[in-house]
């Protein structure tokens, strides 16, 4: 069986790209200790299989609570799967390492460090010398457009600027894979679009593999080469679809195109079908009732 599989891979044309990260049958079960009930296991992720190609921009989209952040934590090595394996460059992932950079939800900047020293944190752990650190941090602060803010502390920055610092920090120690957990969830709409364009530019410049988690369908489709659609309870990957929108992209240019609307609608449909236990009609009926009730008042 394995032989057949490897042959099949060999036969495939080379231009599909090599797999950077291979996720095999991952399950993640949380043991919730409540009411002394032993059967309170919560399955956050169930039977997830996913291959992430080197250099691709993959987004994971799904409703909140579908385990997408848990999946990202497992890829980062911050959390261990209950069963299954996960490989990077054919090596099994056992913990966090500098080959993967993560941008967490809510910036997670160190408030006692200036922009420059935040960006240099990973390099300090890597053991990079002071002069080289400075040179690298200067380069990445420039890349995210924060020249002149090197000596500011995080409290002096706006949300969008903090997010740029977080991205620069994750890029500075030169990881091959950038993992992003809803990085633009906390910034306003205009800033988000700017940041998305910036991220696409940075991705094209640095040629990193990016795994980007979001709950926004538009964001997922606009950024990605491929979108993995997850459903909740238990979290599993419903479908992975290719996005063949032209590159290089600008979110503002594609947002109004017919193909973008069509793809987002398709993703929306898949997401709806992925949640059969939510009775749509009933909730809309309730909504109508609510409206009429308030109308009579």
């Amino acid at each position: 069986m394995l032989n057949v599989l490897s042959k099949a891979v060999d036969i495939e044309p080379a231009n599909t790209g090599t797999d950077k990260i291979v996720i095999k049958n991952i399950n993640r079960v949380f043991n919730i200790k409540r009411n002394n009930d032993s059967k309170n296991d919560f399955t956050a992720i169930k039977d997830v299989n996913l291959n992430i190609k080197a250099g691709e921009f993959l987004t994971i989209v799904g409703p909140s609570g579908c385990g997408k952040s848990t999946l990202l934590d497992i890829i980062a090595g911050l959390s261990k799967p209950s069963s299954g394996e996960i490989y990077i460059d054919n090596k099994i992932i056992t913990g966090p390492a500098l080959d993967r950079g993560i941008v967490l939800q809510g910036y997670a900047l160190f408030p006692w460090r200036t922009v420059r020293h935040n960006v240099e944190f990973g390099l300090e752990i890597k053991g990079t010398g002071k002069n080289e650190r400075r040179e690298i941090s200067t380069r990445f602060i420039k890349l995210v457009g924060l020249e002149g803010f090197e000596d500011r502390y995080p409290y002096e920055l706006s949300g969008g600027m903090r997010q740029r610092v977080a991205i620069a920090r994750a890029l500075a120690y030169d990881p091959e894979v950038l993992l992003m957990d809803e990085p633009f969830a906390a910034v306003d709409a205009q800033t988000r679009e700017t940041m998305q364009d910036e991220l696409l530019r940075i991705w094209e410049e640095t040629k990193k593999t990016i795994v980007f988690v979001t709950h926004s369908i538009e964001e997922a489709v606009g950024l990605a080469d491929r979108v993995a659609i997850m459903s909740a309870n238990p979290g599993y990957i419903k479908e992975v679809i290719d996005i063949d929108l032209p590159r290089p992209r600008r979110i503002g240019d594609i947002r109004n195109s017919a193909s973008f609307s069509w793809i987002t609608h398709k993703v929306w449909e898949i997401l709806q079908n992925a949640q059969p236990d939510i009775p749509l009609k009933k909730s809309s009926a309730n909504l109508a009732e609510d409206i009429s009730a308030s109308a009579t008042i």
Partner: protein
Amino acid sequence: MKKTLYSINNKFLSVYIIIAFFVLWEIAPKIGWANPHFVPPFSVIVAEARKLTFIQLFVEASVSLKRISIGFTIASLLALPVGFILGGAFPRLENFLKSLLKFLSQIPPFILFPVFVVVFGIGEKGIYTVILWAAFWPIMFTTITGVQSVEPILIKSARSMGANSFTIFYKIIIPGALSSILTGMRTGMTMSFMMLIGAETLGADSGLGWLIHNAQSMGFIPRIYLAAILIAVLGLGVNYIFQWLEENIIIWKEVTHDKAI
């Protein structure tokens, strides 16, 4: 011109009340608002300071300061590691010990003074222990709080970049808890000053607390006020130093608190 006058006026607003206080102190006994025997005018206290000589006051003050710094330093050296260990390394042990520690911290050191004397002997060691006891608890509790209030996402973020436990301790936990720790040290210092007077009346033959005790037993009322003023000034000065340290070490936060004076 009016504006600058106004801003100068604002700056000295808190000084006015102190001046007014001393003026009232001077006048009140003289015009019969207060009994001059129990509340001597401020000028009498200044005269008393002259009589005692600056050198003797300096000696008494430095003896007291030495006691505080020794007791406080030992308290910090014990409380910080204990706080870090209980707050960071063994949170379950901290939960287990919490009620006992809270109970112990509520015991005033003077009740334990006889025990201290039995264990450490009469003299300086007993005084150091009283101050140690007073300063230890606030420093330890704020260290625990400080360590526990470090945001988990910062630790997660550091771990994602491959930081080991040691690096996380001195690059995340210590700076994250520092603000809280410095506040605790300031409280500990204030407690030390409050306990000093009591400790020096119990078993000392020098220091500002002894000066008060001695003057009390001999009926030198101006001397009591003099020593009290000196203790207040010293305490305020040390408090200022800590506040200055806090402001110059914790430079990554917006300044929100008002200054004392």
